[in-house]
């Protein structure tokens, strides 16, 4: 991975872990509705946010992500009844840990985006891209891979 800090017009890379049923479909809807948003995000589709292992997030940073987003169904709307509650609980514990291990809380985002909330998805991506852009490239974890 080249040192992005020196690059002109640096753009952050954001990894999004989303559930198949709500947020992935919501992101699809943004496409079918021909909305536009920042191209910085790369989606990894999982069946449910409850499948997301906190290690995924760490690995994403290790592999060059400047920000990570986790997004699933709204509380009560989970396709698998309660998977998103597991994700939320895991998130609460994990978030404070992230701060402790030196990852700025602004690099990590959690959201609920339903299959019909294309607008929310677009706003969310634009907003977190801006926020992460301000924080600059995240270099501290890159070396870990080697």
């Amino acid at each position, binding site marked *: 991975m080249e040192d992005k800090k020196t690059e002109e017009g640096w753009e952050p890379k954001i990894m999004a872990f989303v559930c198949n049923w709500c947020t992935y479909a919501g*992101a699809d809807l943004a496409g079918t509705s021909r909305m536009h948003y920042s191209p910085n995000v790369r989606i*990894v589709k999982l069946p449910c946010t*409850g499948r997301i292992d906190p290690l995924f997030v760490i690995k994403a940073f290790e592999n060059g992500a400047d920000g990570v987003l986790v997004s699933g169904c709204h509380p009560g709307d989970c*396709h698998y*009844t309660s998977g998103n509650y597991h994700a939320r609980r895991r998130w609460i514990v994990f978030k404070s840990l992230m701060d402790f291990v030196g990852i700025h809380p602004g690099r990590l985002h959690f959201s609920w985006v339903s299959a019909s909330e294309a607008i929310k998805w677009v706003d969310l991506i634009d907003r977190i891209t801006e926020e992460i852009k301000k924080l600059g490239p995240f270099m501290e974890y890159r070396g870990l891979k080697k």
Partner: protein
Amino acid sequence: MPRIGVFVCQCGNNIESTVDTRKVAEEMKDLPGVVFTCSYKFMCSSPGQEMLKEMIKKHDLDGVVVSACSPHMHEATFRKACEKAGLNPYRCEITNIREQCSWVHPDKTKKTGTLKSMDLTRMTIERLKRNRPLKTISMSVTRRALVIGGGIAGIQAALDMAEGGIEVILVEKEPSIGGNMARLSETFPTMDCSQCILTPKMVEAELNENIKLYTYSEVEKVDGYIGNFTVTIRKKARYVKEELCTGCGECWEKCPYKAESEFEMELKERKVIYTPFPQSVPNIPVIDAPDCVMIQKGKCGVCAKVCGPKAIDFEQKDEFIEEKIGAIVVATGYELMPNERFGEYGYGKIKDVISGLQFERLASSSGPTGGRIVRPSDGKEPETVVFIQCVGSRDEKKGVAYCSKVCCMYTAKHTMLYKHKVHHGQAYVFYMDIRSGGKRYEEFVRRAIEHDGAMYLRGRVSRVYEKDGKVIVQGADTLSGTQVEIEADMVVLATAMVPRGSAVELAQRLGIGYDKYGFYNEYHPKLRPVETVNAGIYLAGTCIGPMDIPDSVSMGSAAASKVLSLFAKEKLAREPIVAHVDTPVCNACWDCLTACPYKAIEKEGIRDREGNIVRWHAKVNEGVCQGCGVCVAACRSKCIDLAGYRDEEVFAAINAF
């Protein structure tokens, strides 16, 4: 070394306009394990699929990446094509470069889109390298169905399935099937009498050899999964032996005690041993235990004395029956929102303010007044009746945000019924909008206004109060911009339809979704309207949301056809996206067991030669597992993995980021 083929779709100009698909294909060529790449105009077209199949054979591919539209669109198409070419369908992975790339990043220089498409495609390739061929899981099916709710939707579903040769168990919590439709007088827009069209269907359901009726019963417990459910039904004590009772009616003739009739909506009393209405199916009475003097105090017993076949049994207890079934149709229907919530309309305080369903009973020829429309307070014919629409509906503050859909129509019907029975009477309707979408519906409302002289006033009612035996209605007529005051004899409220009070509890028992009001969620509101997220459980009628009789009947039939097509197969095939336990690694902490929303994790013991259990580990029931992966993330020893989304595959995608 894997042999992977990468097919980048141009989707005409949909992808090509912002993504240089040739460049994406070219770049992927150099990745280890990739032996073939190309860019093609329409991958989903027949020639596109043919080309895919041909290349699989020509290059002896063992994995395929199609970078095209969303997997929700064409994953099935490409997987099927791969299967035809002899490749395991799960060795085909889709990259979404249309909905999540070309359409949302309108960079005409193609730089942004191409870069992102390359990233996404590379991630998919790496993921594909780690994924394993999967086989669809095949399961046996119990060809019996359960219908919960014996209203018109449930009856229709049961009849259709029985017609298709399936054994059906119909569970109804009231003593008779028929539901709310049995209460209605006439039905819009044809004005045929509700009981005349419903009762033949009720009798048909009773007589059909394939239908087993459980009335005065409730579903207590549901276990299992699609094709293999076990349900426990609580058959409440009727205190009447069904097999002996002939339905002669001697008992309820002679019973000396009375209670409010639930069926007649408090407009009439019934006996303590009763059938809800004369055409009840089955025509077997129940004893209302809390009101029965014999059961409570041990005195009376008149019904037992007069019963010829000796069918009365005061000692009867609730019975629990277990049934094995393969599919469930939920048709629990609706009830009305409690009118007492709207104090300004005086319901409950003023006797002559009634609900729409009560008006139905008054107008019904089998109702408490024999079809005469009279005031509940003094039994006099009302000269002026005010109908208030949207009571609770479209009222987010005090009621519900949604429109109850049928009130505009039934209010128009009420004004007509009223005019036909009280010729000199005048009906007034306070409305917000008239919503009469549907075949012959608008004409029906016009008829009520133009032919039967109903006076429609656009506006809300602010207050209803009693004065000198009259019910005074104060409201606004927004079209003329004036305040109006009507001296009415009776007021009818078109109250919002809400789900049954027990709807949420049942949903939790069944593991199906519900909205904030308690209406059940469809799998997809447009394309899969009668399915739920829990495979094998279907919906029909007003438990989904307000709808009229034709819609309820169609949904009942639709749910039945879903069950019939499910049962048409010898074996059930399902997606192999299920969790697996690496048993030697499992340390039996049971975190997975508590995390699993489907109770799909079981404890399995390892036995020594003497047959003693020496160690425990978790086991996934493939039939029950829905593949959410919650257990995988919960597992401490990392011994559970989810086929199709294994840790290794996800990490491979992350590493390629």
